[in-house]
């Protein structure tokens, strides 16, 4: 798009009274920020500038204006994601992402070998006594083999009346030990995460609760979380229904105890038989379901006491040319949880991505 596009830094990150030191380095994600030395003086990294600048006290008018700006920033980020997704969907080299409408739960279905799925996932909520936040994840999922899928995530979050920050990255691998389909299919999942102040809520473990989401970003970023996460994914596809169960164990490598959690999903396409005519919004393109997840305490206090739990309906629509949209309102089931989380996801699958890249490279080399 030309200069004044939705994805231009000026529209994604308007000038803000709070973030004079933080300016975008990457477009469209609203995730990655860098320090502007010209304004701040000398800081060479983002963190010291954030930590050094206490949260300013604004007037009511200032707060309102800032809310509008953060809201417009968030909307611009989403608009950018949609724009990218729609542009990609118009490209002919597409493949249809067969998606279950889950945001936390993994099914046993693996990415097709050679395919690359790019997804943008968002979660927004407002803890009581805290500010509304939008946690976002940009996900790259690649099918290495039929039995091995690898994913890389970039995480970021934007908190109203606070700041927009890049919160870290995750790398995960899923391995399917049984090569045939059974009535229940296990998949082994390992993840390494290097994050801080993360609000993407990709999982809930241990005693995670709304209190973790109320700290200002400057404080929250002081705690570095280098974690490994293991999941046992169990999944079944029966009569058009998908039933998925995840058992999660996570350990912060800074000598913290193992924390546990769970995620469950149940979904089904609205129609099991495809229509003979091309259609964009026929029932078979919608998958509806329900998702539930929560924490199970830690090694010393295992159980559901002082843990948060969420439950909500989910819906997924996949377009004929590779774009998939997912949406879910998820409700906190106890006072330890956020009252409501809205989740939104856009994904796009590129069929045989590596093969295409190699072919393009070869074509370029022969010219």
């Amino acid at each position, binding site marked *: 798009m030309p200069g004044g596009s939705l994805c231009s830094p000026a529209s994604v990150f308007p000038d803000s009274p709070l973030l004079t030191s933080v300016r975008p380095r990457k477009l469209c994600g609203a995730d990655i920020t860098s320090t502007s030395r010209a304004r701040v003086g000398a800081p060479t990294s983002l963190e010291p500038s954030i930590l050094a600048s206490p949260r300013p006290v604004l007037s009511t008018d200032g707060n309102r204006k800032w809310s509008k700006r953060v809201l417009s920033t968030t909307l611009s980020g989403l608009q950018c994601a949609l724009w990218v997704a729609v542009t990609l969907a118009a490209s002919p080299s597409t493949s249809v992402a067969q998606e279950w409408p889950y945001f936390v739960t993994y099914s046993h279905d693996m990415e097709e070998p050679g395919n690359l799925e790019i997804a943008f996932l968002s979660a927004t909520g407002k803890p009581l006594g805290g500010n509304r936040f939008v946690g976002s994840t940009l996900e790259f999922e690649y099918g290495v083999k*039929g039995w091995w899928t690898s994913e890389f995530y970039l995480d970021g979050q934007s908190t109203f009346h606070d700041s927009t920050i890049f919160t870290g990255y995750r790398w995960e691998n899923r391995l399917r030990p049984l*090569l045939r389909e059974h009535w229940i299919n296990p998949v082994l999942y390992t993840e390494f995460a290097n994050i801080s102040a993360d609000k993407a809520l990709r999982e809930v473990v241990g005693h995670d609760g709304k209190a973790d989401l109320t700290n200002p970003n400057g404080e929250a970023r002081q705690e570095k979380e280098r974690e490994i996460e293991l999941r046992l994914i169990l999944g079944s596809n029966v009569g*058009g229904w998908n039933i998925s169960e995840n058992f999660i164990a996570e350990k912060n490598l800074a000598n913290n105890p193992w924390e546990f959690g769970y995620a469950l999903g149940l979904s089904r396409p609205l129609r099991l038989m*495809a229509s003979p005519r091309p259609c964009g919004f026929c029932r078979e393109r919608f998958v509806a379901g329900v998702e539930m997840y929560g924490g199970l305490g830690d090694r010393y206090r295992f159980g559901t006491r002082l843990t948060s739990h969420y439950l909500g309906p989910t819906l997924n629509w996949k377009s004929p040319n590779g774009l998939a949209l997912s949406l879910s309102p998820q409700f906190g089931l106890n006072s330890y949880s956020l009252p409501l989380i809205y989740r939104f996801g856009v994904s796009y699958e590129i069929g045989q991505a590596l093969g295409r890249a190699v072919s393009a490279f070869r074509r370029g080399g022969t010219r």
Partner: protein
Amino acid sequence: MIRPRLILLVFASAIGLLAAANGTWLKEVPAREHARPNPLRGQPDAVAAGGRLYAEHCAKCHGKNAQGLGKAPSLRSLRVQQQATEGDLHWLLVNGNLRRGMPSWSKLPDPERWQIISYLKSLGP
């Protein structure tokens, strides 16, 4: 002493891989699945819908005309069109052949798998 054994091992592995590429999955299909009939056989709508599903899910690997692309085999071959029954193909779609790069399509509803098979069998060799 080691060299002849190594050569033998490499030779045996190559034979094994060739055999795997040559449709040994057909021998793994249980008799019950082999004999399973296609409930949508003879329905023109199933062929049309299967063609649409094929274009969305299968064409990226097997080619728009099912002629095969790269390592993905042609689906117009005698093996698919004549040796394999519709039940065999259904079993392959459910289980995949993960070692050989064919994913499991158990995530598709059963009627959609049969629609794809109806379309494949309509192609002919």
